[in-house]
């Protein structure tokens, strides 16, 4: 925790986005996480992404559960909506919020404990429902708030700070999401913002459930030799499968010189994401190949990162439930609640 709050003074030359806001306008309260926590870098990457996308803070909702990761919604976009839910229940609360107001941008922040232990079922069903949201899973492999026990994402053989090895098989959120039919699956690293920011921007623009598994080292309990989620380990073992570059709708697309190797995926809002595979046989729109790639990286002791899989053809929660285009929250009361007569008529149909 810092001794002071961040001074309001900003760099005089700080650029402004289309809304006239600087990056500093997307900040929140001061972080009370440990100094050097990966989550703070993720927060900074989110702030950068919101700013670059000209996201109006009042059109966004920050959703979280319990844990170090879930605290971080307080540290960005102080002028947006938010809900800090019960442990592991963020996905269902977000489903409800999204059902009621489909026009907001939902940013769910969770961790490996909140998502892969207590909230695993919630996560799976939010993926199945294809809730239109960004789901940031800040993954550090330990329960930091309770002083460093292994979490469900700890790799076999990964050492605790005290020197004990983990013996249980990990849950890999990327493999899990691929098998459950997620339409946007990515993995990145908090220490690599050049990779993380375009992925976040693509995830925010993707219509449907966008999972980003961010390896976000715990400096206090999981940044030692023997850890597989430390800064140093990630820098040595990160294997970028796909280099993503997000191009917003308004900006001219300039393809790189080796454009033959680039897959351009058009997102629902008209913006595009350009994907450049780092190996010739990788196809980020092929779910089977993505699964195979992640598994083979794992076998080699590498961590596959990048925007691993994207499918823009998926139907989201509202498509599947055939809801009206107008957010329920904005429907006139008489339409939303047509009264006892309409209710009785409806009930008649089931007799």
């Amino acid at each position, binding site marked *: 925790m*810092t001794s002071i709050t961040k001074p309001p*003074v900003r*760099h005089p030359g700080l650029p402004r986005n289309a809304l006239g806001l600087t990056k500093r306008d997307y900040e929140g309260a001061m972080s009370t996480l440990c*100094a050097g*926590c990966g989550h*703070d870098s993720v927060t900074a990457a989110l702030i950068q992404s919101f700013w670059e996308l000209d996201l109006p803070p009042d059109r966004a909702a920050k959703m979280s559960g319990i844990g170090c990761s879930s605290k971080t919604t307080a540290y960005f976009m102080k002028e947006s909506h938010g809900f800090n839910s019960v442990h592991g229940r963020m996905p269902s609360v977000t489903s409800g919020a999204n059902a009621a107001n489909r026009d907001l941008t939902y940013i769910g922040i969770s961790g490996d404990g909140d998502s892969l232990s207590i909230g695993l079922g919630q996560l799976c069903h939010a993926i199945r429902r294809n809730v239109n949201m960004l789901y940031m899973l800040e993954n550090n492999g330990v329960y930091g708030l309770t002083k460093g026990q292994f979490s469900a994402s700890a790799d076999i053989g990964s050492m605790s700070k005290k020197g004990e090895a983990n013996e249980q098989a990990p849950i890999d959120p990327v493999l899990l999401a691929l098998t459950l039919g997620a339409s946007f699956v990515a993995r990145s690293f*908090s220490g690599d913002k050049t990779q993380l920011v375009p992925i976040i921007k693509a995830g925010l623009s993707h219509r449907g459930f966008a999972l980003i598994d961010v390896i976000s*080292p715990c400096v206090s309990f999981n940044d030692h030799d023997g850890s597989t989620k430390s800064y140093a380990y990630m*820098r040595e073992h990160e294997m970028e499968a796909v280099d993503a570059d997000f191009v917003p709708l308004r900006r001219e697309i300039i393809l790189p010189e080796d454009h033959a190797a680039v897959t351009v995926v058009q997102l629902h809002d008209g913006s595009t994401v350009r994907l450049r595979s780092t190996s010739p046989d990788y196809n980020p729109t092929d779910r089977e190949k993505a699964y195979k790639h992640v598994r083979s990286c794992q076998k080699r002791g590498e961590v596959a990162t990048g925007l691993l899989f994207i499918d823009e053809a998926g139907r989201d929660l509202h498509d599947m439930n055939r809801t009206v285009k107008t957010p329920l929250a904005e429907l006139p009361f008489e339409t939303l609640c047509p009264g006892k007569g309409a209710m009785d008529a409806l009930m008649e149909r089931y007799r």
Partner: protein
Amino acid sequence: MGSTDVSDPRYYHKVVDCQWACPAHTNVPQYLRLIGQGRYDESYLLNRQSNVFPGILGRTCDRPCEPACRRGRVDEKPVAICRLKRVAADLRGDITDRLPKAPAQKNGKRVALIGAGPSSLTVANDLLPLGYDVTIYEKHTQPGGLMRFNIPSFRLPAQVLDDECGYIIDQGATMKYGTPVESMKGLLAEGYDAVYVGSGAPQGKELDIPGRWDAKTIHIGIDWLANVHFEHIEKIEPRVLIIGVGNTAMDCCRTSMRMGATSVKVFARRGRKHFKASPWELTDAEEEGVEIMENHAPKRFIVENGTLTGMEFERLSWTEDEKGRQKSTVVDTVVIPCDAVILAIGQDNAFPWIERDTGIEFNEWEMPTVDKVTHQSTRAGVFFGGDAAWGPQNIIWAVEHGHQAAISMHLHCSGQDVTLRPAAGMNLVSAKLGLGSWNYANDYNPSPRAHMQHEELVKRFSAVSVEVELGFTPEQAAREVQRCLNCDVQTHFTDSLCIECDACIDVCPTSCLTMTVADDDVAVLRTHLSAPAENLDQAIYMSGPLMQTRRVMVKDEDVCLHCGLCAERCPTAAWDMRQFDLLQPYAGVEHR
């Protein structure tokens, strides 16, 4: 660009913008903190080490520190450094027992100083504690030079001058008042080991245009001010014009208002942004009802029957050519009625008393040839400083000249090469007291610059000696001190400790930090930082390669608030806040 060498004291010194800009390199942030703590004595003494006259300069300094102040780049106005300096001087207790003292055992060397102005007194201040026998020749009967005769007492009370000159003289200088040096040869014949010429630039510039010599009420500014000081002049005519718009002009116009003038106008050839007077002096003069006229060039004095009745001016309009040079064209002429004119268009040096065959060479402008570093003339053992060396500058420059000349004189008298200057050193000590706890207040205080209270106009004009500025209260001072960004508490980086977690970059409020690929060209490096680094006067720090990715840490020093958040969010203490203390060399004091 290789990695930055912060072991060279100059790197961190430059980060302390005020100290770097101050000719005497006064340790501003540290003396401000002492004021904030109410430790006025310590603050005064620290200040005195470098600038020798805190009470005088706290009222009269040209303040090169304030335009340089970093606060002015992140907030509307810089810290009121100069007037805070005055607070320490005003509120100090008796510090006489803590002043340097001359030793009982003298070193057997005799030096003569010509003029008892700020530069000579500084030389005396530096040499007396080393055991020198110091003799000061002064043509007037009091010490202080221009500070006493040309700065009116409503800006600088006599008591302040007496105290601070006394601190030096009382160390045992032999004062020869009322003794102008009339022959350099004669002085040299007295066998001094070194001679210092600190006699100032005592001759006001003339304006030889028609009518100049036809009336009695046309005065030279500095002479007129001196006459007011000696009470040879007790009043001036009702309508007064001042020619020139430097600080002497400001003193002349404001003094006129106190000597019975009812209408005072100041005339400048050029527009306001080219004025030499400090902006606050212009404001103070205008507050007192002085009118300032731009773009007027004097053409002739209008004298009728031996009485000055007016002055004719050409009104100019200025244009700038593509090279930025100013060109004037005459629009028309105007006659301004007046009863008296004071000329304040600059000062010249005059050395009629230095014979030209003493080995002291003079150039085509009749100025002595003086080495910029050593202050030595072409005759070994004769040194020049203050306005006498290179023409009029300000008091704080005179003080710095005195320090440098004292170093040279000491080297000369101990038989050493005056060009081998003693080195500066530094202390660099962690400011950390504990977790999130520093030995300085790192929080940003958003208060606006403190406003100086002025004496009411009616009281002000009752006598020349009524001081206008009332000074800051201790409460005002304490708040103003908090506006200081503590630039001397340096962000010190140890590359081998960094784990590249980005925490410092993410938390920095002013986007100073970037981790990037090293670039040999600093101009290129400036273009790929977190925020544009467009202030080329400010340094770019670059670390050595980092352990994990071989990138480098880059810091643009420009708008760093020295808030210490980078160090507080650093998990490995790769960033640390370290208090920098520049150890300046003085005569007989060296830091290796």
